[in-house]
């Protein structure tokens, strides 16, 4: 794939210098430098939360100039993008992971959504269709321009997105995990397309977790970790060492960020057997594929995997069938088959699920701490259907002290608490239901280091109290630091299991990557 002009001598089309970006006290990017040369395919890799998407949002103007530190040079000139239109004018086009097409509009309408051939403000349909056909041909699609998006598969939708980008005279194409939801044939076609773009002088940035794909197409690879650039590898200087990339992606010291615990593991109290779940809308898409797992009392089991691996789908479908359709399989609690067919029954059976999305699924933000804590177990603070407000308040105060929820009283609106304190309220709510099995989905997402430590301590306390705890997390160090056993999920299946003491980020990542390569 070597071009006549060596890469090293090509001018940079894009330079991002010393980019820093914070959200409140959380530093998402610190002093990131990132250079892309004209005509190359540049891969950007890193763990979930390493800052890849944030960096691309800075580049495309989603985060406007002034909201970050550092400078962006495009074609050698410093640019101050105020919004995404500014960057699009220069030909910087970003294609997001979640496709932004309007399902009930045609391909042509989607491609020329904002602007397009028109006469005196009236759409010139024939011209539109003609141009659409030309664009579709470039990405290898033969569909009619009037086809509705909803009738296309994900792979073709992805190609329509790219055709849309081409309609805007793209110079720098940014693809955020373009092959994440594609099957192998579609992925291969997409990668071929990228190579062809390279021949036509279009520069691409590709964010991906799939190392085999990256090593196939990328000219250079930049690794991000914890919001910093770890380094850039040139793929033309020698064979790409995937292990080297993985090591750079995950290397991090664990120090004492995780409170110590001596596990006291008892009998198996939670079993899921042959669990299968299908996508709620696309009934042919199997999200969880016949998986089984066992958890013992006092055990903390982690579920690792990339975004979209099916972890949340698995957990929510078990918890009262709150996700998916055509769910099959059995759940056993304390050796007996348990009815978890709705949330109410699942709670009764001793199950609790702490959502990954506390703002939308976990809390009633306009209500106070007290009402949120009692919500899942109102029976516990009432008699014959009437709530005892004093008892409710006392329960809330007890949890406020025990979980160290920082607020001035239990009557404070949960919407006004910090992320960490909100998470503690959600945890309190579920602890009040008296569960035997807790599933914690991304329990420390978006909360600061101090609060994280407290959440880990709570996990330890729960395990010590003989509960079975399942932790779903995208942060591998967190799983390694807290779990007795880590199961690796990929594309709806468990593809590996690592004992806590043997777990390293490398061998977890390798389990995922190996699977992807197949």
């Amino acid at each position, binding site marked *: 794939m070597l071009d006549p002009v060596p890469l090293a001598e090509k001018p940079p089309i894009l330079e991002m210098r010393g980019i820093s970006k914070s959200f409140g006290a959380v530093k998402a990017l610190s002093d990131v430098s990132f250079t892309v040369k004209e005509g190359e395919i540049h891969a950007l890799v890193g763990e979930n939360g390493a800052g890849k998407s944030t960096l691309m949002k800075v580049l495309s103007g989603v985060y406007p100039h002034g909201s970050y530190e550092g400078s962006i040079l495009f074609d050698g000139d410093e640019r101050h993008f105020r919004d995404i239109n500014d960057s699009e004018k220069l030909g910087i086009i970003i294609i997001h992971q979640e496709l932004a097409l309007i399902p009930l509009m045609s391909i042509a309408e989607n491609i020329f959504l904002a602007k397009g051939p028109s006469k005196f403000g009236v759409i010139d349909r024939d011209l539109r269709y003609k141009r659409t056909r030309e664009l579709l041909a470039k990405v290898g699609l033969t569909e009619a321009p009037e086809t509705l998006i909803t009738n296309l598969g994900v792979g073709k939708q992805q190609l329509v997105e790219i055709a849309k980008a081409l309609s805007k005279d793209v110079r720098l194409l940014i693809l955020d995990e373009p092959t994440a939801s594609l099957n192998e044939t579609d992925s291969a076609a997409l990668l071929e397309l990228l190579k062809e773009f390279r021949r036509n002088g279009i520069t691409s940035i590709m964010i991906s977790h799939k190392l085999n794909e990256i090593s196939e197409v990328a000219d250079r690879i930049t690794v991000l970790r914890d919001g910093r650039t770890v380094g850039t590898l040139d793929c033309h200087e020698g064979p790409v060492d995937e292990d080297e990339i993985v090591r750079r992606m995950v290397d991090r010291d664990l120090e004492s960020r995780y409170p110590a615990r001596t596990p006291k593991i008892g009998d198996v109290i939670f079993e899921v057997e042959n669990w299968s779940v299908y996508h709620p809308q696309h009934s042919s898409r199997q999200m969880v594929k016949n998986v089984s797992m066992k958890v013992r009392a006092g055990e903390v089991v982690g579920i690792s995997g990339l975004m979209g691996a099916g972890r949340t789908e698995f957990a929510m479908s078990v918890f009262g069938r709150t996700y998916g359709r055509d769910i099959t399989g059995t759940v056993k609690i304390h050796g007996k088959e348990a009815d978890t067919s709705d*949330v109410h029954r699942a709670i009764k059976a001793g199950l609790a699920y702490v959502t990954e999305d506390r703002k939308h699924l976990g809390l009633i*933000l*306009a209500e106070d701490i007290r009402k949120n804590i009692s919500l899942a177990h109102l029976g516990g603070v009432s008699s014959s259907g009437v709530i005892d407000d004093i008892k409710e308040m006392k329960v809330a105060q007890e949890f406020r002290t025990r979980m160290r929820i920082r607020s*001035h009283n239990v009557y404070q609106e949960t919407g006004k608490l*910090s992320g*960490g304190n909100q998470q503690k309220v959600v945890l309190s709510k579920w602890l009040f239901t008296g569960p035997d099995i807790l599933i914690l989905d991304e329990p420390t997402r978006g909360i600061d280091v101090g609060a994280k430590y407290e959440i880990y301590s709570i996990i330890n306390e729960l395990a010590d109290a003989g509960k079975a705890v399942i932790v779903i997390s995208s942060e591998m160090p967190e799983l390694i630091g807290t779990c007795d056993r880590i199961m690796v999920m990929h594309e709806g299946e468990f593809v590996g299991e690592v004992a806590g003491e043997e777990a390293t980020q490398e061998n977890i990542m390798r389990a995922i990557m190996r699977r992807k390569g197949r």
Partner: protein
Amino acid sequence: MSTPQEAITAPKVATSFWKDNLRDYGMLISLVAIVIFFQVATGGILLKPLNITNIVLQNSYIVVMALGMLLIIVTGHIDLSVGSVAGFIGGLAGLLMVRWGVDIWLSIIVCLVVGGLIGAIQGYFVAYFKIPSFIVTLAGMLVFRGFMIAILGSQAIGPFPPIFQKLSSGYVIELISSEGGLYLTSFILGLLLALALVWQNFRSRARRITHGVESEPMGFFIGKNIVVLAAIGYVAYLISSHRGMPNVLIIMAVLIVAYGFFTNRTIIGRQIYAVGGNARAAELSGIKATRLVFWTFVNMGVLAALGGLVVAARLNSATPKAGTGFELDVIAACFIGGASAYGGVGKVTGAVIGAFLMGVMNNGMSILGIGIDYQQVIKGLVLLGAVCVDVYNQRR
């Protein structure tokens, strides 16, 4: 990503108390201000015993329906069909009692059950079929208006049997011989109600204090109770010096107390607020949101039917025009009373105050001779203003 903001400094108790409760008392203060304004503007006619009784009678059905509407709005829905349903049920009552001579009590039960069924049908489409309530009840509004005209054949049916008329135009039977024109039984009933309220307040305050729960300042508490006692006592006195306590006022008071208790203190009441506040989170906490939404519509249907009966009894005939535009007054009462259009927020007391606020304005403006045209303009502006103030307060 969230912005961590630790360490909330505790503000002084007194200021936070006022801030927290301003919203609750703001509405009451507005009502009092409007009453005073019209009392002065009408040269004292507004608070004449006859007029007070009239205000109660004129607004009773709005209050009754507002109780049901509040629950619907709290779940995040709306019911536009209540006026038509009330009218339809009035027509049905006329048909049953006047034309077919069915027993009064049986007719009333049939009417309430039919109301509940209508609510169930609409609730089914909203809750289980997930069709926006705005559309379902807009359809219901047309359908039941049409049915009513069909069964009445576009003419009024009446008069109703005297016992049924008593529902709206009857008064509490006087057990004690009245002296000096004062209906003592009614007055005593009113005073008892006021005392019961104050006693309840004292009891719950004492309970809170023994359990060490923060409570409102003592001075404020006593002041509040004196005001409650005086206001209810005064209204009871006025009403008792006209014809005594209307039956419908008793029904209304019982319903207000029952719904107040239901929304504040029961598990189901709490769950309704949770569904309105965040339906997904409520469902994931084991609350059966769909079922609750369904039942709020059934409840609304029954109360709309009751409202329809009260109106029919008051007009003493079932007319094809009955119930027209009620939905707007009922919905306005809830929103003026502080309910949120986004769901999850709203109080029974607020809706009742909202209904009376509208009622006093209607009445006062009529006395002042303001035409129906400008009455509507003013009511519309008051609705908009009240909600603006509320939204502004929440944004602070």
